[in-house]
């Protein structure tokens, strides 16, 4: 039998009391839903105003309306799609090649002592090299066609992918691997059902980085030696002082980067919904 204490009324004890001061505010920043868009719209509006009012020379900084008109004309003439399709082809090919190789090598390093010993040494030595510096060498090796540009992008993507993959493999909780071993799950199933999904967050984070790397390298490579492609287009526009066209190219690159980023967001939402 429980011996219950009498329940006094709270109000009896309230005399002379004061509320405890709240000290827990702050340190929980959250992005507002519209604040970013509103800020962007304000910047564009101010930029337009500055251009229209003649505060800045349109030759050096054309207003957003002129850039939009340039994009519209490019789209109508078909030049936009021509340049964009070359860039997308180079990025796509280079990124896929670099990613496939990076995933294979990354898993090798993550799972094999021998591959780790060799692979980490090479990656540490070669990763810091700016890959665009290798383009002239790759042109010597592969000719002046598409191959050296695609190879440059693939190289840039490869190293970041390999690093994110083996870091991801290393980050898979060891207790999950031991659990699988304790049930005699074979090696290939442990890789497929434990290590691959466990490393996926890191691999997808790597995709985000390699997408930017690929964009950077495609523009650089196209500026060095290409007739078509957004990089080549931006360089030509700069040479001809067509700043509206130049900035149109930059905006297209920005939109391209945003679309790729959104695609990776969707991929993460689909594959990492369990987080």
């Amino acid at each position, binding site marked *: 039998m429980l011996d219950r204490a009498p329940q006094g009324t709270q109000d009896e004890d309230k005399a002379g009391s004061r509320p405890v001061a709240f000290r827990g505010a702050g340190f929980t920043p959250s992005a507002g839903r519209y604040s970013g868009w509103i800020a962007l719209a304000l910047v564009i509006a101010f930029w337009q105003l500055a251009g229209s009012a003649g505060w800045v020379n349109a030759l050096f900084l054309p207003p957003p309306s002129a850039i939009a008109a340039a994009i519209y004309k490019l789209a109508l003439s078909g030049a936009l799609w021509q340049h964009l399709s070359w860039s997308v082809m180079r990025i796509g090919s280079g990124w896929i090649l670099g990613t496939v190789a990076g995933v294979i090598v990354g898993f090798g390093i993550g799972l094999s002592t021998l591959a780790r010993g060799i692979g980490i040494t090479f990656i540490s030595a070669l990763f810091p090299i700016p890959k665009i510096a290798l383009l002239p060498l790759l042109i010597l090796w592969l000719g002046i066609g598409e191959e050296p540009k695609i190879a440059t992008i693939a190289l840039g993507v490869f190293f970041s992918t390999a690093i994110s993959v083996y870091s991801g493999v290393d980050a898979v*909780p060891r*207790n*999950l691997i*031991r*659990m*699988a*071993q*304790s*049930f*005699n*799950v*074979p090696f290939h*199933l442990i890789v497929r*059902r*434990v290590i691959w*999904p*466990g490393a996926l967050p890191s691999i997808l984070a790597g995709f985000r980085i390699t997408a930017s790397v690929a964009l950077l390298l495609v523009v650089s490579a196209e500026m060095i030696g290409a007739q078509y492609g957004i990089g080549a287009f931006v360089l030509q526009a700069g040479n001809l002082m067509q700043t509206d066209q130049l900035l149109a190219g930059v905006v297209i690159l920005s939109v391209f980067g945003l679309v790729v980023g959104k695609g990776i967001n969707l991929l993460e939402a689909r594959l*990492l919904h*369990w*987080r």
Partner: protein
Amino acid sequence: MDLIADHISHRFGTLDVLDNVSFTVRAGEVVAIVGPSGCGKSTLLSILGGLLRSSEGQAELRGAPPAGSLNPLTFVFQDFALLPWCTVEANVEFPLVHTALGISERRAVIDDALRRTGLTDFRGAYPKQLSGGMRQRVGIARALAVRPAILLMDEPLSALDSQTRELLMEDFIRLLADGSMGAVYVTHNLEEAVRLADRIVVLSRRPGRVREVVTIPMTRDERGDINARGKLLAIQNDLWSLIREEAIDAEREVQHA
């Protein structure tokens, strides 16, 4: 099927962790392993379950596993070790995927394991959606799915709050009641040990040696009786007096490490 610790010693580098540990877990028997922190309890369990190679001596099995057992020595982990990207059902199915069980047979095994652990209504949930107690139930359901002869439980309740511990302890008692399954139960909690075990192996401070093997002189059913509480408490106190001095030394050692 019996599990035998045969003169097991182990060292990590120059650190001696276990020294000549021998005992036998007979079929259907529950043996608890207790001892001061760092005495090698979990290391011993890993060796017994084949997850760690001992420096000397070995773990041995005697007799055939029960018919239909897919993994005679099956772990239940302290941190549950659930695949966070799999649902409850997929977690329970995980150890069956590589076995020769057909799909319908596998489904029946999973259904049975979920039913026995009260998880049928949660089969589509992900681990992050479950409380600690429910997660450990998933770990137990996964272990039951492979019809183990001996459960190797490494502090399975230590990550849980006391109320959940109490509920899961009742589950363990129920699951082990028919004697078809034995267990090695590593714990630092002496109350859990005396409630669940048939025998308790007391290890000394590192390097862990078998200091005492204590038999609990009543069945698990009898231990539920209110009159048995005093006797169990006395055993618990005796165990504590065996461990206390070394536990204090071990704690100081850990703090100074």
